[in-house]
């Protein structure tokens, strides 16, 4: 176990280094001159020259990469050129928002997706199964921004029971916090629930036809125990992996959903930064989310390692 862990952690360092090169390199492909984009409507040549110099845009690419990487290693992710705020502060400000939204979305996905998948597998071929499949198809094919907007019109404009957008920190008012997050979390969770339902269903169908399940039934165990204890526990392994991956993706920012509900999370931060050519913010946020993704993957692998004895052999 320890050797496995050390090996996995050792891989993270070159992976992150590789990711940093990709982030930096891809960003250079963004068209347009960042200094010109930042200089505002007046496009004053002196201001453009100043911005170019201040943010090292007049240096060769490898020098800029070296300067940025040096800063990152010292814990300095740079400064937002748009609002003159350290990127690390912005990341720390947005991370709890995105993490809470992602957590709520995954919770909703689990609460809908797993029971729907189990019921659909147990009632395979019945009208309930078809109904669950239609639900999954709906969840997968409904665009987030469209569903989000419909929810706003219904719950905020017509019924007036939920705020249309914005975010209230939980420390300020927990009730308002949940009220602002319930719609975006449902929009995100709904789409993931559909994927989870499909995975749970196919894993359950496979498990329920396995020999050990037949043996369990032959032993006279009631169906509930067979399905939940023997079936679901085994079927959940791929679903756990899927959950971790989806959570990682959510942490990198639910771009459209955050835009529709004006949630000040990573997604909104990065979209605005790309349009404003705020390079330091783009680099900092992508590096942080990539790190979160890699760590979550590692956690999933460790969990997988622990629950699957064959990997330990």
């Amino acid at each position, binding site marked *: 176990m320890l050797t496995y862990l050390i090996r996995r952690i050792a891989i993270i360092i070159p992976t992150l280094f590789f990711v940093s090169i990709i982030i930096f390199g891809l960003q250079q492909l963004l068209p*347009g001159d960042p200094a*010109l984009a930042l200089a505002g*409507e007046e496009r004053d040549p002196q*201001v453009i020259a100043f911005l170019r110099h*201040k943010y090292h845009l007049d240096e060769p690419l490898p020098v800029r990469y070296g300067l940025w990487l040096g800063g990152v290693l010292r814990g300095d992710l740079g400064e937002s050129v748009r609002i003159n705020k350290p990127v690390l502060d912005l990341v720390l400000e947005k991370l709890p928002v995105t993490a809470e939204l992602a957590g709520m979305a995954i919770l909703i996905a689990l609460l809908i997706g797993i029971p729907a998948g189990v019921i659909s597998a147990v009632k395979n071929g019945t009208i309930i199964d078809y109904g669950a499949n239609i639900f999954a198809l709906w969840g997968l094919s409904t665009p987030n921004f469209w569903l989000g907007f419909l929810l*706003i019109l219904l719950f905020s404009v017509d019924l007036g029971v939920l705020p*249309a*957008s914005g975010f209230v920190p939980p420390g300020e008012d927990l009730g308002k916090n949940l009220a602002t997050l319930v719609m975006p979390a449902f929009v995100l969770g709904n789409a993931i629930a559909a994927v989870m339902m499909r995975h749970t269903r196919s894993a359950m169908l496979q498990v329920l036809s396995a020999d050990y399940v037949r043996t369990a039934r032959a032993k006279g165990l009631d169906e509930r125990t067979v399905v939940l204890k023997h079936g679901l526990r085994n079927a959940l392994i791929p679903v756990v992996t899927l959950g971790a991956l989806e959570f990682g993706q959510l942490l990198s920012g639910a771009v459209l959903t955050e835009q529709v509900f*004006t949630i000040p999370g990573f997604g909104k931060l990065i979209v*605005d930064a790309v349009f404003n050519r705020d390079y330091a913010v783009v680099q900092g946020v992508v590096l942080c989310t990539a790190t979160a993704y890699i760590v979550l993957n590692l956690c999933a692998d460790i969990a997988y390692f622990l629950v699957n004895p064959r990997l330990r052999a």
Partner: protein
Amino acid sequence: MKGIKLAVFAGAMLAASAGIASAESTLKIGLAEDPDILDPTIARTFVGRIVFASICDKLFDITPDLKIVGQLATDYKWVDDNKGLVISLRTGVQFQDGEPMNAAAVKASLQRHLTMQGSTRKGEIASVQSIDVVDDHTVKLTLSAPFSPLLAALADRAGMILSPKAAEALGDKFGTAPVCAGPYKFVERVAQDRIVVQKFDNYWDKGKIHVDKIVFQPIPDNSVRVANLRSGGLDFIERVAPTDVPQIRGDSKLKVTTIGEIGYQGITVNVDNGPQSKNPLGQDARVRQALDLSIDRAAINQALFNGEYIPGNQWVNPSNPYYVKSLPVPKRDIAKAKALLKEAGVEHPSFTLMVPNNTEAQQVGQIIQSMAAEAGFDIKLQATEFASALKLATEGSMQAFQIGWSGRVDPDGNLYNFVACGAPLNDGHYCNAEVDKELKAARAIDDPAERLKHYTAAAQILLKELPIIYIYHRQWIYAYSTKVEGFTPYPDGLIRPQGLMVK
């Protein structure tokens, strides 16, 4: 028993008065964008000016009909053949940190605008050579040459006076906690979420301030901004899309107010910026006149903007005092356009029109494309992301660019930098000595009637040579709850808190 009743009554009165005391009025304003840094010296965005209107008072301000009036200044006088401007300051004004607003503070602010690295104000007041403190409440600006648009610049961010103590302490981080002499104190900013300001009790004109707290919330999506207003999440929104206006007008709980902008939307033609200018549109004014005549501005306004915007043909809208009335918006005339093309020897000119990749700009581009086709033009539309489009325009990698300008109070701010020889925003590299002469003459004098004569002379050339084909002017469209009262729209699009009330 009577004693108990009295005690209950007293308790109820106390609770009620406590309730009244704590009932703080808050106005939630939905902004169409997230402002950039809140430092008047280096701020670059229009939307930032909306927030500044609450935090930072200026030396001068404008009236709704674009007259310049004193704000922190009470009077001004041009001296030394218009090469000196003496400004008298209001007495008893405090900054939000308690420091006095006086001539030394004005000098420090203007010096900061002129000398700070990366200052976006420097160009606006570059004519100022020196600033002298005459006495505690009088400053004198000495200019390198007469420059009457300076007053309008001082009625915008360049005229915002910063607390010298805060500016000194925070340096280039001043925008993280700005301190000025406006009606509201900066409280907090959560990037992309909100900017909160609180009423400043010692504001010099506090009788006009009725709202205790203002929360600015950036919500870029038009539909979401309207949904927030309709649901009561916001009290006030700016830059409403014209297509949303009928829906809002139909809601009895909402009000709509509009005013014509000081800016414009048009097509900048590359007439001499590199090889891309070498085409009939760039080289022959008759081809540009034909394009101008092929456009039905009123139809564009009706089809795309529900008739809410203003068709235009000059750098200021037709209701502006500097609009040249003898040169009105031309009517569409396809026959004349075809005749002009024939005369120019190119009956089917072809060019690429670069349009920013937003819906409004692309729709305008498509309509122009089909209108001009009737006159014989073959226009290829090139939708380009805005930052990239700016770069292409600056380096001359475009034939024509559909772009707008948010506008400045003085007409010089809408014109000089775009058409004068070698000016920084003159992407098409248009250059005409006669136009330059008129524009420079208009800069040197203060009398509006005399200035208009020079702008008329310039317009007679510019509307014939058409380096920029002006198409329309937007209206600033505001929508707000019926709870909000006392709002006065201004052509510069800012939301001034003076007079605003929330019932």
